[in-house]
């Protein structure tokens, strides 16, 4: 696992038989091969010959994209599901950082909003406390735009942490 991950959104257009269990046969190979499923759209109104067009959107880590897609295609073929089209979405970068200090007392919402104003989004926040007055430890999963370097992102974080006297650990 790398500290910094480029993630890519992928949409597969397939045709599924209108029978119970067919959706599972579509989902299983994707999640088994590292896909994080974001959404599934069924086009029942476009059903032809008992086959329903389905679009499934999922995220894959850039480093395993090629091999995962190969495996997914192979397994779907085995399940008699043909991929009609593949669309690649915008690449996102993701990193994990740790903040130690009075993360909440120093207005965590302000921290999140300030980052969001620069298109830096917190996709996950996990915290551990002991007591209210004690320092907290917060893990942030951060998505940042393709045109921003890791160094630029970390500089943004450092500036906020310096101002709020938070201890930042990056990768």
């Amino acid at each position, binding site marked *: *696992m790398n*500290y910094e991950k480029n993630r890519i959104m992928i949409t597969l257009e397939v045709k599924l038989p209108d029978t119970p269990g067919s959706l599972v046969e579509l989902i299983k190979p994707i999640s088994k091969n590292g896909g994080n499923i974001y959404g599934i759209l069924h086009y029942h109104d476009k059903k032809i010959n008992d086959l329903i067009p389905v679009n499934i959107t999922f995220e894959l880590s850039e480093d395993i994209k090629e091999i995962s897609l190969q495996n997914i295609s192979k397994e779907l073929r085995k399940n008699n599901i043909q991929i009609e089209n593949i669309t690649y979405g915008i690449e996102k970068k993701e990193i994990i950082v*740790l903040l*130690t200090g009075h993360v909440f007392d120093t207005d965590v919402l302000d921290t999140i909003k300030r980052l969001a104003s620069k298109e830096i989004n917190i996709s996950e926040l996990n915290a551990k*406390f002991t007591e209210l007055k004690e320092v907290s430890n917060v893990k942030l999963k951060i998505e940042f735009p393709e045109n921003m370097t890791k160094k630029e992102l970390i500089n943004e974080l450092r500036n906020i942490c310096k101002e709020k006297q938070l*201890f930042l*650990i990056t990768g």
Partner: protein
Amino acid sequence: MRVKICLIGKGTVGTSFLKLVNIKKEEFEQKFNLEIIVTSIFEHDGALIKENGINLKEVLDAETNFRNLPYWKKNVSAKELIPTLNANICIETTPTNSKTGEPGLSHIIEALNHNMDVVSSNKGPFYIEYEKIINLAEKNGCFVKYEATVASCVPSLGIKENLIGNEILSIKAILNGTSNFILSRMTAEGVNFSLALKEAQELGYAESDPTLDIEGFDAAGKIVILANDILGWSKSIHDVKIEGISKITPHAIDLVKSDGFVIKHLAIAEDNELVVEPRLIDKHSPLNIAGTLNVIELETKYAGSIILMGRGAGGLEAASALLNDLLSIAKQRKFLR
């Protein structure tokens, strides 16, 4: 051939060096026709001096009572006597003053000024006045070697010669066994920083004042030497951005565990910047070593990463690095058969 040695500092490393020379001297005589003669051993309050060679067994047997030997000269200093010594190589093993590099810096300068080659385990002079020492050695046609200053006997500086056809781009390393031991204990047992430090002190891995280790200054000095020596930079310890490990909590370690990360105190030389700070690394990374070990990852242009790992501290470990450097100089001076 004979090589006359002046040893400055008879602490753990200096004494281990004498032990090792005593063990290896016959082997070196037979193998290389090299006779290592120690003619002076300096301490802060005097010196053992014997022009035709000190009996090392006698000094080692005397243990801490070496000042009772008849050739002990009270209140003489190395700096004062270096000009009068007829030695080929000065071995510098005094403790480091992290702010000034003294007294080692003066000893090294004085030795080089009197055309003595220098071998050092004392890193202070090198992370404070690297360029000055190297330039002076070059000007006077002397060799100066300091493998023991970084990761002890792990050939972190010597590796440069083996990678001469490649190019080293950056360095990531764990260079302080004490802070690595503390973080390893916190990770493995979930104990807090104070408890892990106390344990390190009880086991003799941490000093009673552990500041230099846990606040990153020791590792900072070593990454300066590594960067200057193997990347060809010209930095001093003042150029290093340093952050210690005392703010790390078991909760912080626990939070990143589920994502496959551990927290390590890394020394990094990359993009012309020197940093010592806690970083998240993949638990499967070769840098994820436990206990008091040191590890150095060299990123090379043509062969990816190269890892060196081993015990980064200890008397005999450092002494063996000193002896390697001594033999390397003897070879370059064509003292070996």
